[in-house]
C-alpha cells in the first residue's frame, strides 16, 4: 500500500506528523495509515505521513526535507519511546534548522502496539488519541536554548576492584585525572582473592 500523505493547506501553524510503522513492530497491530489520516484532520496539522522507519536515515531525511520544503514549525513523531529516540529526532530537527525542543513524540510502540497485541482496533484508536494529545501539546511547545557550562575534567571512581582499576587506568592514560576511592586498606577487591582465573588460567594479581 502507498503511504498516505495528507496536506492541509490552511493551518495557522504548520505541524508535521509522522506515524512510524517500525517495520511491523507498530504496524502489525496499529493501522498506521489510518492514524496518519486521522491526524491530518487535526487543527494545525499541515502534513501527516506514515513512514516505514522514522529513525532510519531515509526516514529522518524525509522529515528534514519536509521541514525545509514546507516550513514546518512543530514535529510530532509517533513511534517508539522518547526515552529511546528523542535525542535522535532532536538532532534531526537541529540539522533541519528547527529548534530541537519543538519536537513531541507519541509512544506507539512500547505503550501501544506492544501492550495491546491482540486488540488492533483498540490499539489503533489509542494511537489516534496519543497522536492527538501529542499534536495538542506540540502546538504550545516553545523553542528552548541549552546553556553551556564549564565542566570539570576529572572522574570519581568508586571502588578499587578489577573494574575500578581498569576504568581508572583507561581514564588516566587518556589524560584525565581520576579520584579513586576504595573502602578497604588496599585496592584489588574480590579479584585479588582469586587464585587462577579462567579462561587463561593465569593468576589474578
Amino acid at each position: 500500500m502507498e503511504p498516505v500523505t495528507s496536506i492541509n493547506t490552511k493551518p495557522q501553524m504548520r505541524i508535521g506528523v509522522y506515524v512510524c510503522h517500525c517495520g511491523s513492530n507498530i504496524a502489525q497491530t496499529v493501522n498506521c495509515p489510518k492514524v496518519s489520516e486521522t491526524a491530518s484532520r487535526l487543527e494545525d496539522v499541515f502534513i501527516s505521513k506514515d513512514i516505514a522507519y522514522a529513525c532510519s536515515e531515509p526516514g529522518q531525511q524525509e522529515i528534514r526535507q519536509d521541514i525545509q520544503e514546507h516550513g514546518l514549525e512543530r514535529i510530532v513523531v509517533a513511534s517508539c519511546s522518547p526515552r529511546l529516540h528523542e535525542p535522535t529526532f532532536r538532532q534531526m530537527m537541529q540539522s533541519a534548522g528547527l529548534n530541537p525542543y519543538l519536537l513531541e513524540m507519541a509512544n506507539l510502540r512500547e505503550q501501544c502496539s506492544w501492550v495491546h497485541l491482540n486488540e488492533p482496533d483498540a490499539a489503533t484508536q489509542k494511537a489516534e488519541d496519543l497522536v492527538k494529545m501529542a499534536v495538542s501539546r506540540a502546538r504550545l511547545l516553545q523553542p528552548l536554548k541549552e546553556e553551556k557550562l564549564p565542566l570539570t575534567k576529572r572522574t570519581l571512581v568508586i571502588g578499587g576492584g578489577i573494574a575500578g582499576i581498569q576504568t581508572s587506568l583507561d581514564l588516566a592514560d587518556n589524560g584525565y585525572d581520576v579520584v579513586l576511592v576504595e573502602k578497604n586498606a588496599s585496592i584489588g577487591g574480590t579479584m585479588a582473592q582469586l587464585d587462577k582465573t579462567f579462561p587463561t588460567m593465569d593468576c589474578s594479581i
Partner: protein
Amino acid sequence: MTDVGRHPRIKLYTLSEIVDVKGYVGNFDIKILKKARYVSEEECTACGDCAVACPVVRPDEFNLGLSSRKAIFTPFPQAVPSAYVLNVNECLGHNPVVCAKCLEACEKGCINFHMSDDEIKERVGSIIVATGLEPYDPTELDEYGYTRFENVLTSLEFERLVNAGGPTKGKLIRPTDRRLPKSVGFIQCVGSRSARKGSKYCSNTCCMNTIKSTLVLKEHYPDIDIKVFYIDIRAFGKGFEDLFMRSRRLGVHYLRGLPGNVEELPDHSMRVAVENTVTGRLEFFDLEMLVLAIGMKPAKSTRRLQEMLGLQLSPDGFFLEAHPKLQPVDAASRGIFYAGCAESPKDIKESVTQASAAAVRAIRLMHKGEIYTEPITSEIDPEKCNACGKCVEICPYNAITKGIRKKTPCVVNTAACAGCGTCAAECPYDAIVMNHFTDDQINNQIDSMFEESSQEKILVFACNWCSYAGADYAGVSRLQYPSNVRIIRTMCSGRVDEKFIFNGFLNGAPVVLVSGCHMGDCHYIDANRWTEKRVKKIRKKMEKLEIRPERLQLEWISAAEGSRFAEIMGRMEKLRQSVSIQEISETIEILKNQGKMTQN
C-alpha cells in the same frame, strides 16, 4: 594494581568512603571520609618489623579467617598502597605501659597514633560506580552444613586454600586433619537460581570458576576424585567450552542434580545425598571435602550510594542501567556510569570490558571541557511572585533563592535547577513556569484525550525516570494491559499539579493515577515526597467536594517493574468500571460550580 598506585593522574584514597554528593553532571561536589590508617602511606616501606612486634593476633580477613594476622598488618603482600595499616579497635594502644611495641619496632617512625579521620572535598565531572559484589553467605542453606561441618568450604575459601600466596602456600588440605583430601565435591548454584533461598538470578561465574578449580586440582593432584553437582553447566564464553571438555576428559565427574542433604561421617567426610536427575535415582557419595560454589550479591554499599546519587536498582538489587542493550554502562542520571559487578554479576573479562566502556563514555562526556545543560528548567514570573518562599523550601536542589529584601521575587538558578517541576506544581500564585512541561501544554493533552468517550479512559501521569520507564518495560516485555490507558509524561511526579487532576475530572475522567519513583529512588532527590503530600491534600479536597477520593490513585512504579505497571493498569481498569456515568457527570457539575464560586 601497582600501575594505579604509581600513576601521576590517579589520586588514590583507601580506607575511604563517599559521604556526600552534591551538584550535577559536569560538576559534582564530593565529600570523602578517609579513615585514619595510623601508618604514614608515604613513609612506610612495608618492612613488617611492626607486625613482628605486635602481640595481638586476629583472623586474617583476606584469607577469610583461614590464617591470622596482627593488629598492625598488610592486607596481602601485593597490596596497593603497600603501607601497613593499624586496626585501632584491636590495638592495645599507644600507652607504653600497655603496649606501643610497634612504635618501638618501627625505625623510620611511620606509625602515628594521633592520626585522625580526614574529610576530603573533591570536584569531579563524572562518576563511575564500580562497587563490586558481596559473596553469598551460605549459612541459611543449612542442608549443606556450612556452619556445622568444618570440611565444607565456600568457593572463595577454597580459592585461598589453593593459592600459592594463601595460608597453606597453595597446598590443599582439609581443615579438620590438615591432609590432602582424596575426594572433593563441588555444589553449584549456591545462592543462585533459587526462588527459595539466595537469589533467583544466575551469578554468571560460578560454573566456570568450578571448572577452573577442577583443572587446578587435577593439575596438582591427578588422582584426586572430583564430583560436580549442577543444574546446568553454563560455559557460554569464548574458550569456556574447551575448559569444560578438558575438565571432563581429566575424569571430573559431572552429575546433574543438587544435593538435598549433607551429613558428616565419623572421619569428618561428608555423605552427600543427591537425586541424579539423569537416572532419576537417589544416590549417595562420600566426599572428603565439599566446596560450595557461592553466587554474588550486590555490594553492601549499593543502597546507600543509590540514594546518594539518585540511581535506580534492578529487582535483583544491582544497579539499573539506562538501557539494557544500547546504554549498558550508563546510569539514567547523566554523568554517572557503571563498571563491573555493581551492575550485575560478571567475570573478570566482562568487568574489564565494561570498565573500559565506562571510561570511554565518561571521556565522551568530558572531552569538550564544557557541557550543555538541558533547558528544561523552571522560571519565575516576577510579576506574579509574591515572595512567599514556598518554592525555596521545596526545591530539592536549593536552586531557588529568595530576594534579599522583603517582597522581591524569588529567582531560579538555572544551572542548579534539575527540572523536576515540583516548584511549579506547588506555587500558590501560579508564578512559576516549568519550561517544556507548562501548565497549558499538559492541560492541552488532558483536554484532547477526553474529547471522546471520556468515561472509558484512564488518565495516568508517569514520571520519566521510573514509572514511564516501567511502562516502557511492560511494552518491551509484551505485557498486555487495558487499552484505555493514556499516559502523560512529566519529568517527575512532583510536577503533577492539583490543577491537572481537577482538570481531568472536570473533563470527565473516571479515574486518575499519579505514578512516580519509589520513596528514596526519586531522580530529583526527594521531590516525590511532595507528590505524596499533594495527593493526600487533593484527596481531602475531593472528599469535601463529595467526589470519591479513591478515584485518584498514587502508585510508585520503578523502571524495572514492568509487570507491576501492567498489574496496576488492570487494577485501575477495575476501579474505572466502578465509576458510573452518573457519578462522572455529578463530579463535572460539582467542579463547574466550584469554578464559578472561585471566580466570583
